[in-house]
């Protein structure tokens, strides 16, 4: 390789993201999650309502024009019916013309269980409402022993993969993720990637674990290790676009360049958070 081309002249593009969170309340208690607030699955529990459609509409009206992707997440409320989530997607699609990544196999499974409706119908309705892709939620680790340990209440890896694959049938291409943390052992990563290569994905997202003080084994990943991880993923799945989500701490320009060199096709930068 020419010495002058060893590092890219500029980093891969940053994609501005707006996240719509329907609710932060969740009953799953996944160990790596410092985003959700625990709400018990019992009758009479004091649970706030989800984001109102009018509030979502107001905030979407003054959305930052740099936003190129909308992510809708947090559908694990068991108070609101599926029609609420569908209406939210519809509202978002009315106000935003770009791609909308809505929910994930985790939420689909919950609606399927609660409303007793076929998964394909739910997906088709989300697609009808304007969603263009299925999010990677719940695919943090497809290594079952890890799943048992970190998120025992989530559906198992095999079920998650099969639900995600249904997205292709309904025009909601699924995406997958790799949760980058120090705990990720080599053989676990190999197994996770092996499972991902069994089907195709719209894109892959690398999410960087937030530092969690109480769990020192869940420390943030070192940049050098992250670059190695990105290049390993790219080597295994060269044709799938790979995006790195900006972590909770700022990345330097050098870090963006080094990650681009390792194989990142872009970076997801959260510009706006729309919350209840």
């Amino acid at each position, binding site marked *: 390789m020419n*010495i002058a081309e060893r590092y890219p002249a500029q980093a891969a593009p940053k994609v501005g993201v707006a996240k719509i969170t329907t609710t932060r309340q969740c009953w799953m208690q996944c160990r790596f999650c410092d985003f959700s607030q625990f709400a018990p699955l019992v009758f009479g529990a004091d649970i706030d309502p989800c984001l109102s459609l009018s509030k979502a509409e107001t905030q979407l009206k003054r959305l930052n024009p740099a936003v190129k992707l909308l992510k809708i997440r947090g559908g694990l409320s068991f108070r609101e019916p599926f029609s609420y989530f569908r209406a939210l997607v519809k509202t978002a699609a009315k106000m935003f013309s770009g791609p909308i990544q809505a929910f994930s196999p985790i939420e689909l499974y919950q609606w399927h269980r609660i409303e007793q409706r076929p998964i394909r119908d739910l997906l088709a309705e989300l697609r009808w409402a304007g969603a263009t892709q299925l999010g990677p939620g719940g695919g943090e680790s497809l290594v079952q022993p890890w799943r048992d340990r970190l998120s025992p209440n989530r559906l198992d890896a095999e079920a998650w993969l099969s639900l995600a694959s249904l997205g292709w049938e309904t025009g909601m291409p699924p995406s997958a993720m790799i949760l980058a943390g120090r705990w990720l052992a080599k053989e676990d990563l190999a197994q996770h990637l092996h499972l991902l290569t069994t089907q195709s994905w719209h894109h892959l997202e690398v999410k960087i674990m937030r530092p969690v003080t109480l769990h020192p084994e869940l420390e943030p990943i*070192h*940049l050098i290790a992250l670059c190695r991880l990105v290049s390993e993923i790219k080597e295994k799945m060269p044709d799938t676009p790979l995006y790195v989500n900006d972590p909770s701490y700022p990345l*330097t320009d050098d870090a963006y360049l080094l990650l681009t060199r390792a194989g990142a096709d872009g970076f997801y930068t959260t510009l706006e958070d729309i919350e209840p």
Partner: protein
Amino acid sequence: MNEALLWIPTLDLTSVPAPYHEASAKMFLAAHHGRGHIISPDPLVIRVPSLALTSPRPGFACHLISQSPIPDGPLELIDVTISCPRGVQDPHLARLDQIFKKGPVRRVILTRQSPEQSLNAIAQALDTLLDTFPEILIAIDVNSFGWDAASHFAAEYPPILLDGIADSELWRLMDLAQVLQRPVWLDDFSHHPKPVPELPQYKIFDPPPVDVHRIPFSSRFR
């Protein structure tokens, strides 16, 4: 075992009032197990393991910083700090050439000219220096390079040294060493290194000892 990453704590006495030089040097050495490199304007009364002076004196190594004029006459041993050259025409490269004519160079410390200086230019400079002077210690200054670029080059070029690491930043070096699986040695130019204890490495989880999909899942109830 992989090659060690060296940590050479450095005390710069150039801005310290002369009456405090000895006391500062004593405290510095006591805090670093008797190791550490000292840069001073004048020779010290106490014996120190590793000393370089900012002006040439017979019997002492000379530390030349970027702005200091090149002294007349030959020098015994030279440490030099220069900005990372941008290309063949860069004036810093010409300055380095002049210094090489003055005497044996022990260490070249590269500083990044600006955070915008491209990684390509730095890699090219490191390639040239390491190929041309394999016997000279090449160091990069972490403060001007930034830890991301410095860590990357330490990983890409194992012989280079990371310079300018303050005590409070040692954890970053240890963190990098853990990723690169290299030991860290506390050292100076008297060459009696002392291994730095590794950061605690938290055990990566084992798979759960019981099958959580069967009831009862705790062995206490079996």
